[in-house]
C-alpha cells in the first residue's frame, strides 16, 4: 500500500516571500500521479498542481511549482511571492494510474496536511 508523509504540521511565511512544503511518499509502482491540494477554511478541496510520474520536468502553475525527485520519492511544493490568500491547509496526495491495472481503483492517498500561515 502507498503511504504519503508530510513532516511539517505547520509552516509560516511573510507575504511576498517564498515557502516550500515537503512531502515524501512510498510506493512500488512506476506509473502514478502526485497532487497538492489546498483546503481553505471553507473546507473546499482545491487542486493546486499535479505531477505525472513519467514526466521528468517539474510542474508549474503560476506562483506554484514542485520539485519532484522520483528516485528519492520526494514531492515538495514551492509557493513564490506568497499572498494572504495562500493561507490554508495543504495536502499532498498520491494516486495510482488507473490504466496501469492493480487494485487501488484510483483512490487518492493523502498526507496528514501542513497548515500554512501567511503574515502580512
Amino acid at each position, binding site marked *: 500500500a502507498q503511504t504519503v508523509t508530510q513532516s511539517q504540521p505547520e509552516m509560516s511565511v511573510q507575504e511576498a516571500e517564498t515557502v516550500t512544503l515537503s512531502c515524501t511518499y512510498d510506493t512500488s509502482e512506476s506509473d502514478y*500521479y502526485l497532487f497538492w491540494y489546498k483546503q481553505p477554511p471553507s473546507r*473546499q*478541496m482545491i487542486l493546486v498542481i499535479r505531477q505525472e510520474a513519467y514526466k521528468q520536468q517539474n510542474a508549474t502553475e503560476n506562483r506554484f511549482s514542485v520539485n519532484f525527485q522520483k528516485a528519492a520519492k520526494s514531492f515538495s511544493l514551492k509557493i513564490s511571492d506568497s499572498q494572504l490568500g495562500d493561507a490554508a491547509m495543504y495536502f499532498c496526495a498520491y494516486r495510482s*494510474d488507473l490504466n496501469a491495472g492493480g487494485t487501488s481503483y484510483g*483512490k*487518492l492517498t493523502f498526507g496528514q496536511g501542513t497548515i500554512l500561515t501567511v503574515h502580512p
Partner: protein
Amino acid sequence: NAGVTQTPKFRILKIGQSMTLQCAQDMNHNYMYWYRQDPGMGLKLIYYSVGAGITDKGEVPNGYNVSRSTTEDFPLRLELAAPSQTSVYFCASSYKGRPFSGANVLTFGAGSRLTVL
C-alpha cells in the same frame, strides 16, 4: 454543469440515529469515492465504486454502507451514529481516461459536516 453535489451541508445527529449523505455527479464519471476528514487530519477513504452496481470498502468502512444503483448517485448511509463519526465527509469522482490524461484528477464535492451528539 454542477460537478459533484453533496447534501446536506450540515447535520447534527443524536447517538443511535441513522442518516444518508447524498452525492450526485453529472459528469458521467464511473469512479466515485467517499472520504472522511477528522479535525486537523488528512482524508481517509471510506468506500468507493468503480461503476453502477460495484462498490468496495476503503480504509475506514465500519459503521457505513453505500450503494450505487446509477452512475450519477453514490449515497453514504450511517447506521447507528456514534460520536466517533463526527467528521466532514467528502464525495469525489473521476473517469478512467486515456493513459496519463487529465481524467485522473478527482473532482470533489463541497463537503458535508456531520456532528453526532
